[in-house]
Protein backbone atom coordinates (compact mmCIF):
# COMPACT_ATOMS: atom_id res chain seq x y z
CA UNK A 1 0.00 0.00 0.00
CA UNK A 2 1.04 3.61 -0.54
CA UNK A 3 3.29 5.46 1.86
CA UNK A 4 0.43 7.80 2.69
CA UNK A 5 -1.45 4.92 4.26
CA UNK A 6 -1.04 4.65 8.01
CA UNK A 7 0.87 1.59 9.25
CA UNK A 8 -1.31 -1.46 9.94
CA UNK A 9 -0.50 -1.32 13.65
CA UNK A 10 -2.05 2.11 13.74
CA UNK A 11 -5.27 0.78 12.22
CA UNK A 12 -5.23 -2.15 14.64
CA UNK A 13 -4.92 0.18 17.52
CA UNK A 14 -7.85 2.30 16.40
CA UNK A 15 -10.09 -0.67 15.71
CA UNK A 16 -9.25 -2.42 18.93
CA UNK A 17 -9.94 0.67 21.00
CA UNK A 18 -13.36 0.82 19.39
CA UNK A 19 -14.06 -2.85 19.92
CA UNK A 20 -16.21 -2.24 22.93
CA UNK A 21 -19.85 -1.11 22.97
CA UNK A 22 -19.43 1.30 25.88
CA UNK A 23 -16.46 2.99 24.27
CA UNK A 24 -18.32 3.30 21.00
CA UNK A 25 -21.21 4.96 22.78
CA UNK A 26 -18.77 7.28 24.50
CA UNK A 27 -17.37 8.24 21.13
CA UNK A 28 -20.93 8.81 19.90
CA UNK A 29 -21.53 11.13 22.79
CA UNK A 30 -18.26 12.98 22.29
CA UNK A 31 -19.17 13.59 18.70
CA UNK A 32 -21.65 16.15 19.95
CA UNK A 33 -18.95 18.00 21.84
CA UNK A 34 -16.52 17.75 24.76
CA UNK A 35 -17.77 16.13 27.96
CA UNK A 36 -16.62 15.78 31.53
CA UNK A 37 -15.89 12.35 32.91
CA UNK A 38 -18.79 12.88 35.31
CA UNK A 39 -21.24 13.51 32.46
CA UNK A 40 -20.10 10.33 30.78
CA UNK A 41 -20.44 8.33 33.98
CA UNK A 42 -23.98 9.64 34.48
CA UNK A 43 -24.95 8.79 30.92
CA UNK A 44 -23.72 5.21 31.14
CA UNK A 45 -24.71 4.15 34.61
CA UNK A 46 -21.37 2.48 35.21
CA UNK A 47 -18.92 2.97 38.03
CA UNK A 48 -16.41 5.77 38.11
CA UNK A 49 -13.47 3.39 37.82
CA UNK A 50 -15.09 1.69 34.81
CA UNK A 51 -15.55 5.06 33.12
CA UNK A 52 -11.92 5.90 33.85
CA UNK A 53 -10.77 2.63 32.40
CA UNK A 54 -12.66 3.16 29.14
CA UNK A 55 -11.48 6.74 28.88
CA UNK A 56 -7.93 5.60 29.45
CA UNK A 57 -8.14 3.09 26.58
CA UNK A 58 -9.57 5.75 24.27
CA UNK A 59 -6.94 8.25 25.36
CA UNK A 60 -3.99 5.88 25.15
CA UNK A 61 -5.01 5.00 21.63
CA UNK A 62 -5.27 8.68 20.74
CA UNK A 63 -8.95 8.62 19.92
CA UNK A 64 -9.75 11.27 22.48
CA UNK A 65 -7.81 13.98 24.28
CA UNK A 66 -8.04 15.40 27.73
CA UNK A 67 -7.98 19.06 28.67
CA UNK A 68 -8.61 21.15 31.74
CA UNK A 69 -11.75 23.14 31.88
CA UNK A 70 -11.15 26.90 32.06
CA UNK A 71 -11.79 28.19 35.55
CA UNK A 72 -11.70 24.78 37.18
CA UNK A 73 -8.32 23.11 37.10
CA UNK A 74 -9.75 19.92 38.58
CA UNK A 75 -12.42 19.28 35.96
CA UNK A 76 -11.19 17.29 33.02
CA UNK A 77 -12.80 17.62 29.63
CA UNK A 78 -12.65 14.89 27.03
CA UNK A 79 -12.97 15.53 23.32
CA UNK A 80 -12.68 13.51 20.14
CA UNK A 81 -9.61 13.65 17.92
CA UNK A 82 -10.42 13.61 14.24
CA UNK A 83 -7.12 12.19 13.01
CA UNK A 84 -7.59 8.49 13.79
CA UNK A 85 -10.94 8.48 12.05
CA UNK A 86 -9.49 10.18 9.03
CA UNK A 87 -6.69 7.62 9.00
CA UNK A 88 -9.14 4.77 9.12
CA UNK A 89 -11.13 6.24 6.28
CA UNK A 90 -7.98 6.83 4.21
CA UNK A 91 -6.81 3.32 4.81
CA UNK A 92 -10.12 1.75 3.79
CA UNK A 93 -9.97 3.81 0.63
CA UNK A 94 -6.52 2.33 -0.06
CA UNK A 95 -7.91 -1.18 0.22
CA UNK A 96 -10.80 -0.28 -2.07
CA UNK A 97 -8.35 1.22 -4.57
CA UNK A 98 -6.26 -1.97 -4.51
CA UNK A 99 -9.26 -4.12 -5.44
CA UNK A 100 -10.58 -1.63 -7.96
CA UNK A 101 -7.30 -1.84 -9.87
CA UNK A 102 -7.24 -5.63 -9.56
CA UNK A 103 -10.81 -6.13 -10.73
CA UNK A 104 -10.24 -3.68 -13.56
CA UNK A 105 -7.25 -5.73 -14.71
CA UNK A 106 -9.23 -8.92 -14.32
CA UNK A 107 -12.11 -7.54 -16.40
CA UNK A 108 -9.69 -6.58 -19.20
CA UNK A 109 -8.19 -10.07 -19.06
CA UNK A 110 -11.50 -11.97 -18.92
CA UNK A 111 -13.05 -10.02 -21.78
CA UNK A 112 -10.00 -10.28 -24.00
CA UNK A 113 -10.34 -13.99 -24.58
CA UNK A 114 -13.74 -15.09 -23.42
CA UNK A 115 -14.65 -18.76 -23.55
CA UNK A 116 -11.33 -19.97 -24.82
CA UNK A 117 -10.98 -22.59 -22.19
CA UNK A 118 -7.70 -23.59 -20.66
CA UNK A 119 -4.48 -21.98 -21.58
CA UNK A 120 -1.18 -21.44 -19.89
Amino acid at each position, binding site marked *: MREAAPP*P*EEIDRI*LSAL*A*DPTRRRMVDMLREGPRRAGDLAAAFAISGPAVSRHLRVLRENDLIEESREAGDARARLYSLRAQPFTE*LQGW*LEEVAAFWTVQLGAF*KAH*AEKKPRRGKRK
Partner: protein
Amino acid sequence: MSGKVAVAVRLAVDPAEAFRAFTEDVDLWWQRGIKFRFHPRKNGVMRFEPGEGGRLVEVYDEAAGDIYEVGRILVWQPGERLVFEWRAPNYREGQVTEVELRFQPVEGGTRILLEHRGWETLPGDHPARHGLADVPFLGTMGGWWQEQLAALKERL
Protein backbone atom coordinates in the same frame (compact mmCIF):
# COMPACT_ATOMS: atom_id res chain seq x y z
CA MET B 1 -19.62 -6.92 9.62
CA SER B 2 -17.66 -3.82 10.33
CA GLY B 3 -15.09 -2.19 8.22
CA LYS B 4 -15.73 -4.08 5.09
CA VAL B 5 -14.55 -2.79 1.79
CA ALA B 6 -16.81 -3.53 -1.17
CA VAL B 7 -15.96 -3.19 -4.84
CA ALA B 8 -18.02 -4.30 -7.84
CA VAL B 9 -17.29 -4.84 -11.51
CA ARG B 10 -19.31 -5.98 -14.53
CA LEU B 11 -17.84 -8.25 -17.19
CA ALA B 12 -19.06 -9.40 -20.55
CA VAL B 13 -18.56 -13.11 -19.80
CA ASP B 14 -20.87 -15.51 -18.00
CA PRO B 15 -20.40 -16.34 -14.31
CA ALA B 16 -18.86 -19.76 -14.96
CA GLU B 17 -16.22 -18.28 -17.25
CA ALA B 18 -15.65 -15.36 -14.91
CA PHE B 19 -15.01 -17.75 -12.02
CA ARG B 20 -12.74 -19.91 -14.14
CA ALA B 21 -10.70 -16.96 -15.39
CA PHE B 22 -10.51 -15.41 -11.94
CA THR B 23 -9.07 -18.53 -10.37
CA GLU B 24 -7.28 -20.40 -13.14
CA ASP B 25 -5.75 -17.35 -14.81
CA VAL B 26 -4.97 -15.52 -11.61
CA ASP B 27 -1.30 -15.06 -12.41
CA LEU B 28 -2.16 -13.56 -15.79
CA TRP B 29 -4.36 -10.75 -14.53
CA TRP B 30 -3.04 -10.17 -10.98
CA GLN B 31 -1.06 -6.95 -11.10
CA ARG B 32 2.68 -7.08 -10.55
CA GLY B 33 4.90 -4.99 -8.35
CA ILE B 34 5.19 -4.18 -4.70
CA LYS B 35 1.71 -2.77 -4.36
CA PHE B 36 0.07 -5.97 -5.51
CA ARG B 37 2.40 -8.89 -4.92
CA PHE B 38 3.56 -10.25 -1.60
CA HIS B 39 7.31 -10.05 -1.77
CA PRO B 40 9.14 -6.76 -2.18
CA ARG B 41 11.93 -8.10 -4.40
CA LYS B 42 10.72 -11.14 -6.25
CA ASN B 43 7.70 -11.74 -8.41
CA GLY B 44 6.34 -15.23 -8.09
CA VAL B 45 3.42 -17.00 -9.69
CA MET B 46 -0.01 -16.43 -8.18
CA ARG B 47 -2.08 -19.57 -7.90
CA PHE B 48 -5.41 -20.71 -6.53
CA GLU B 49 -5.33 -24.35 -5.46
CA PRO B 50 -8.84 -25.34 -6.49
CA GLY B 51 -11.42 -26.38 -3.95
CA GLU B 52 -12.19 -25.73 -0.33
CA GLY B 53 -9.12 -26.32 1.80
CA GLY B 54 -6.91 -25.25 -1.09
CA ARG B 55 -4.93 -22.05 -0.84
CA LEU B 56 -4.19 -18.82 -2.61
CA VAL B 57 -0.41 -18.72 -2.87
CA GLU B 58 2.40 -16.86 -4.56
CA VAL B 59 5.04 -19.37 -5.58
CA TYR B 60 8.64 -18.19 -5.91
CA ASP B 61 10.47 -21.49 -6.06
CA GLU B 62 8.29 -24.52 -5.72
CA ALA B 63 11.13 -27.04 -5.49
CA ALA B 64 12.71 -25.12 -2.65
CA GLY B 65 9.36 -24.71 -0.95
CA ASP B 66 9.57 -20.95 -1.31
CA ILE B 67 5.89 -20.07 -1.26
CA TYR B 68 3.84 -17.30 0.30
CA GLU B 69 0.44 -18.44 1.51
CA VAL B 70 -2.10 -15.64 1.31
CA GLY B 71 -4.77 -17.82 2.87
CA ARG B 72 -6.98 -20.88 2.77
CA ILE B 73 -9.94 -21.17 0.47
CA LEU B 74 -13.08 -21.30 2.57
CA VAL B 75 -15.79 -21.46 -0.09
CA TRP B 76 -15.34 -22.69 -3.65
CA GLN B 77 -18.57 -22.66 -5.66
CA PRO B 78 -17.65 -22.32 -9.33
CA GLY B 79 -19.72 -19.70 -11.08
CA GLU B 80 -21.19 -18.47 -7.83
CA ARG B 81 -19.05 -17.74 -4.88
CA LEU B 82 -15.46 -17.73 -3.72
CA VAL B 83 -14.24 -16.95 -0.22
CA PHE B 84 -10.63 -17.01 0.88
CA GLU B 85 -8.56 -15.82 3.81
CA TRP B 86 -6.23 -12.92 3.31
CA ARG B 87 -3.03 -12.40 5.22
CA ALA B 88 -0.58 -9.74 4.13
CA PRO B 89 3.08 -10.21 5.09
CA ASN B 90 2.88 -7.31 7.53
CA TYR B 91 -0.04 -8.78 9.46
CA ARG B 92 0.68 -9.85 12.95
CA GLU B 93 0.59 -13.45 14.06
CA GLY B 94 -2.99 -14.62 14.26
CA GLN B 95 -4.41 -11.76 12.28
CA VAL B 96 -6.39 -12.72 9.22
CA THR B 97 -8.97 -11.05 7.03
CA GLU B 98 -11.37 -12.50 4.49
CA VAL B 99 -12.20 -11.83 0.85
CA GLU B 100 -15.50 -12.88 -0.66
CA LEU B 101 -16.51 -12.73 -4.31
CA ARG B 102 -20.02 -13.25 -5.57
CA PHE B 103 -20.54 -13.90 -9.25
CA GLN B 104 -24.01 -12.72 -10.18
CA PRO B 105 -25.50 -13.35 -13.61
CA VAL B 106 -26.68 -10.11 -15.21
CA GLU B 107 -27.84 -9.09 -18.67
CA GLY B 108 -24.85 -9.57 -20.97
CA GLY B 109 -22.54 -11.17 -18.45
CA THR B 110 -21.58 -11.14 -14.79
CA ARG B 111 -21.48 -8.73 -11.95
CA ILE B 112 -18.75 -9.49 -9.45
CA LEU B 113 -19.16 -8.15 -5.97
CA LEU B 114 -16.00 -8.32 -3.90
CA GLU B 115 -15.93 -7.76 -0.16
CA HIS B 116 -12.80 -7.56 1.91
CA ARG B 117 -13.65 -7.72 5.58
CA GLY B 118 -12.64 -8.77 9.05
CA TRP B 119 -10.10 -6.05 9.78
CA GLU B 120 -11.17 -6.11 13.39
CA THR B 121 -9.85 -9.60 13.99
CA LEU B 122 -7.20 -9.49 16.64
CA PRO B 123 -5.19 -12.13 18.39
CA GLY B 124 -6.53 -13.07 21.80
CA ASP B 125 -3.55 -11.62 23.58
CA HIS B 126 -3.88 -8.16 22.09
CA PRO B 127 -3.75 -5.55 24.88
CA ALA B 128 -7.05 -4.06 23.78
CA ARG B 129 -8.71 -7.32 24.64
CA HIS B 130 -7.60 -7.55 28.22
CA GLY B 131 -10.64 -7.96 30.39
CA LEU B 132 -12.83 -8.19 27.34
CA ALA B 133 -12.34 -11.82 26.48
CA ASP B 134 -16.05 -12.50 26.62
CA VAL B 135 -17.06 -9.68 24.37
CA PRO B 136 -17.69 -11.14 20.95
CA PHE B 137 -15.32 -9.17 18.85
CA LEU B 138 -16.59 -9.85 15.39
CA GLY B 139 -19.99 -8.65 14.52
CA THR B 140 -20.39 -6.40 17.52
CA MET B 141 -19.45 -3.30 15.69
CA GLY B 142 -22.05 -3.56 12.98
CA GLY B 143 -22.21 -0.61 10.68
CA TRP B 144 -21.23 1.52 13.60
CA TRP B 145 -17.95 2.88 12.51
CA GLN B 146 -18.74 3.16 8.84
CA GLU B 147 -21.45 5.50 9.98
CA GLN B 148 -19.00 7.14 12.30
CA LEU B 149 -16.54 7.71 9.51
CA ALA B 150 -19.17 9.11 7.21
CA ALA B 151 -20.34 11.49 9.89
CA LEU B 152 -16.85 12.63 10.76
CA LYS B 153 -15.85 13.04 7.17
CA GLU B 154 -18.78 15.38 6.70
CA ARG B 155 -17.69 17.36 9.68
CA LEU B 156 -14.03 17.68 8.76
